C-alpha cells in the first residue's frame, strides 16, 4: 500500500528540523560519536515533564511534536515506532544501581522509563491518543517494520493519520559494545571519513525522526512511499544482487538514490557494487556524515528528503556523492545496518 508523508520532525546529530538552518551548512567535526543537538523543547514539552524525561523520550517527543505541527494535526489516530535499543540510558541507570546496591533500596523511575515502548506510550499519553500503538525492536529493521505496520494498519483503517518514527539513543555503554562489535569506530572521524574513508567501523550516531503518514493523497506536495523492500543478508555480493534484482525486476525509474554509505570498509564494498552497477547513471547522495551510523538511521534519511520536499528545498550539496540530480521525483533510499538491508521506493507527488 502507498503511504503519503504529510509531516516530518527530526532531532539528530546534525540538528533539528524545526531550525531554519537545518542541514544547510556542511558538517564539521572530529569525533567518534554524533550525539543529538537537541532543540529548545519549550514549544513542545511542558518544563515539569521535560525534567523527568530521558534523552530518548525527549528526542522522541520533540521530533513527534515537530512532525505533528508540520502536518497541522494535534494528535494522530495511531502510533508506530521502531527502536533497536529502546530506552538504553534509563535501562543502564537502573541496571547500574541494581548491581551497586545489591538489589536493595531501588527507586522505580528509571525502570518505568526503561521499557522499549516508553516513547510510543509517552507520545500517546501526552497527545491523548487512544489508538493503535506499536513498538518494533528488530535491530536494523525496526523503523522499516514500523512502516510496514503502518501499511497494514491503514489498509484495515483507511483515511487515518498515523504517527510513525524511528528512534535510538547512544550511551557510553552501547557505544563501547558497538565498537567491540565492529559497527562503530574507536578512532575519531571527520565528515570526509564517512563520505570517502575506508575504515574499520563507522562514526556512531543516534537520532529521532517522525512522520505523519496517511493512505490518502494530500492536496499539497508530499513524498509517497510506494514500497519498502527489507531483507537480511550477510553476504554483501548476494545482498547487492538482491537489491539490483528488485530494482530491475520492478523496472524502477530512479532520478536519485540516497545511500547509507558510512565509510566502513565492509559496507563500502556493498555500496560500491551498487554505485558502479545499477546506480552507475544515477545521482547518488549520502546522509550518514550527518547522523552517524545507527540502527534506525533510515528514518533520518527519509526525513531529510521529506523535510526538504515540504520546504521546497533541494538536498544539500554536501550530500552529493557524484553529481546533483536534475530532478528529484523518483528517489530510492538504500541502507543497511549490519546484515539488515532496506530499500524505500519514494516518489514526489
Amino acid at each position, binding site marked *: 500500500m502507498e503511504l503519503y508523508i504529510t509531516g516530518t520532525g527530526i532531532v539528530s546529530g546534525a540538528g533539528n528540523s524545526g531550525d531554519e538552518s537545518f542541514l544547510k551548512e556542511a558538517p564539521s567535526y572530529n569525533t567518534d560519536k554524533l550525539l543529538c543537538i537537541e532543540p529548545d523543547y519549550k514549544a513542545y514539552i511542558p518544563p515539569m515533564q521535560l525534567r523527568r524525561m530521558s534523552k530518548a523520550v525527549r528526542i522522541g517527543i520533540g521530533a513527534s511534536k515537530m512532525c505533528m505541527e508540520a502536518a497541522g494535526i494535534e494528535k494522530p489516530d495511531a*502510533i508506530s515506532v521502531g527502536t*533497536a*535499543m*529502546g530506552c538504553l540510558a534509563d*535501562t*543502564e541507570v*537502573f*541496571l*547500574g544501581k*541494581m*548491581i*551497586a546496591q*545489591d*538489589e*536493595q533500596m*531501588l*527507586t*522505580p523511575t528509571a*525502570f*518505568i*522509563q*526503561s*521499557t*522499549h*515502548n*516508553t516513547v*510510543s*506510550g*509517552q507520545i*500517546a*499519553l501526552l*497527545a*491523548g*491518543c*487512544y*489508538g*493503535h*500503538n*506499536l*513498538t*518494533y*525492536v*528488530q*535491530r536494523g*529493521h*525496526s523503523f522499516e*517494520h514500523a512502516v510496514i*505496520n503502518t501499511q*497494514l494498519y491503514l*489498509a*484495515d483503517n483507511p483515511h487515518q493519520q498515523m504517527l510513525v518514527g524511528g528512534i535510538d539513543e547512544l550511551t*557510553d*555503554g552501547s557505544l*563501547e*559494545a558497538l565498537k*567491540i*562489535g565492529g559497527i562503530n569506530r574507536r578512532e575519531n572521524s571527520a565528515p570526509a571519513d564517512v563520505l570517502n574513508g575506508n575504515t574499520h567501523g563507522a562514526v556512531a550516531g543516534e537520532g529521532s525522526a517522525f512522520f505523519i503518514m496517511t493512505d490518502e493523497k494530500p492536496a499539497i506536495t508530499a513524498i509517497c512511499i510506494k514500497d519498502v523492500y527489507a*531483507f*537480511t543478508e550477510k553476504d554483501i555480493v548476494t545482498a547487492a544482487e538482491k537489491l539490483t534484482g528488485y530494482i530491475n525486476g520492478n523496472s524502477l525509474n530512479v532520478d536519485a538514490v540516497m545511500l547509507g554509505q558510512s565509510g566502513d570498509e565492509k559496507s563500502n564494498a556493498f555500496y560500491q557494487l551498487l554505485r558502479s552497477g545499477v546506480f552507475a547513471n544515477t545521482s547518488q547522495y549520502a546522509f550518514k556524515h550527518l547522523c552517524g551510523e545507527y540502527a534506525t538511521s533510515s528514518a533520518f534519511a527519509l526525513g531529510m528528503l521529506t523535510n526538504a520536499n515540504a520546504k521546497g528545498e533541494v538536498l544539500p550539496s554536501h550530500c552529493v556523492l557524484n553529481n546533483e540530480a536534475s530532478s528529484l521525483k523518483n528517489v530510492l533510499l538504500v541502507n543497511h545496518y549490519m546484515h539488515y538491508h532496506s530499500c524505500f521506493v519514494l516518489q514526489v507527488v
Partner: protein
Amino acid sequence: MKQAAYIVNTGIITAIGNDTAACLDALLHSRTGVGKAEYLKTHWSEELPVAEVKASNEALAAIAGVDAKWPRTAILSAIAVKEAMQPVADKLQGLKVGFFSATTVGGMDLTENVYKEFKEDSSKVDFDNIKNHECGTITELVANHFGISDFVTTISTACSSSANSIMMAAQMIGNGMLDVAIAGGADSLSRFTLNGFNTLMILDKQPCQPFDNNRRGLNLGEGAGYLLLMSEKAMQQCGVTADCKVSGYANANDAYHQTASSPDGTGNKLAMGNALKVANLQPADISYINLHGTGTANNDSSEGKAIEVLFEGKVPVASSTKAYTGHTLGAAAGVEAVFSVLSIRHGLVYPNLRWETQMEDVSFKPATELQQGIAINNVLSNSFGFGGNCSSLVFSKC
C-alpha cells in the same frame, strides 16, 4: 476478503510444563508453577516467589538443540518454536514463512551478570554475554536456527507484546503477504525485571490471587508461547488441518499513565470492543475470557470494570491463568493464546487458582472449578501493559 489465519499447532514452555501436553496436564490438575527461585540468582529468592522453568540453561538448550550460551529467553523461545513447527517443519518448501516474536528482557539475563565489569573494563568481559542483549537479536537467533527468513520481527510493548505479534502475523496471512507464521513471544526471568517490578510495589510475596478482593500483586514468570498460523492454501500443501483460527484482534492505548491502568479501563474496553468488531462477533458470542488478571489491585479492577461495561453485566465465564504461570510479560499473550486454543479444542475452562473473596468493585466472579467438555466457540484473551498498551485477541472454533 481477508484470508483466515488458521491455528495449526501450538508450542509452549512455562513453569507448569515444557510443552503443550505438560501445560495442559497442569491446568487440568490445578498445579501451580509459582514457587521459590532456584535458577535465578537474586537477593529476593526467599521473599518473592516466581514461576520459574525448573531447568538450567544447559538442560533447556539441550531440549531445543541450541547453544547454551544463548540468552535464556532465546533458549525458551527455541523450545516453544520447535514444538509449534513440528507438524510442518520439513514441508514448508515454496511457502512464505514469517516469525513474529516478542520480548521485553532480550538478553538482559546475561548482560546483568557482566554489566559492572563491562563498564569498568570491557576487555575483561566475554563479549558473548553482551552481544545478544538486543531484543531483536533473540528473535534473529531463533529465526536463523529454524531457517525462517521471509519476514522476521520483534515487538516490544511490555506485557501485551506477544498479542501484537499474533495480531501482525494474522494480518500478514490475512492479506496474502505470508503463507505461514510462527507468532508469540518469550521472556526469561531476570534480576532486572524482578527488581523493577519490586520497586513498583506490585509483586506479591505469596502466590498471587488474581481477581480476589485481597489480592496483593503479581508473581513474575518466565516462558514462551507460540502459535503456528497458516493460510488455507498452506495447510493444503502441508497436509495439515486446524480446529480454530485467529478471528479478531485489536490494539489500543489507555493514554492514562506510564505504568497504571485508568480506573475504568478505557484502553481495555477499546481493545476488547475492537477485537470483537474485527471478529464480527457480539459480546454474547464469547464463551470464555482468558483474563489478563495479573493479581495487582490496579489491573484486575480496571479490567473487571471494563468487562462489566462491555458485556453489559452478562459476563461470560472468565479466569486468569497467571496463578499457574506467573506473569510471563512479553510471553504472556503467547502463553495464553496457547491456553485459549486448548480451551476451544478440549472444551475447557480453567479454574482461577487460589480465588477466595469476591472483589468489592467488580461484580462477576471468576471460574473457580475446572469445566470440561463444554462448547467453547470463541475465546477472548486480554493483555494489557506499561505504556498504556492494551491488546485483545479473539480465537474461534472452525
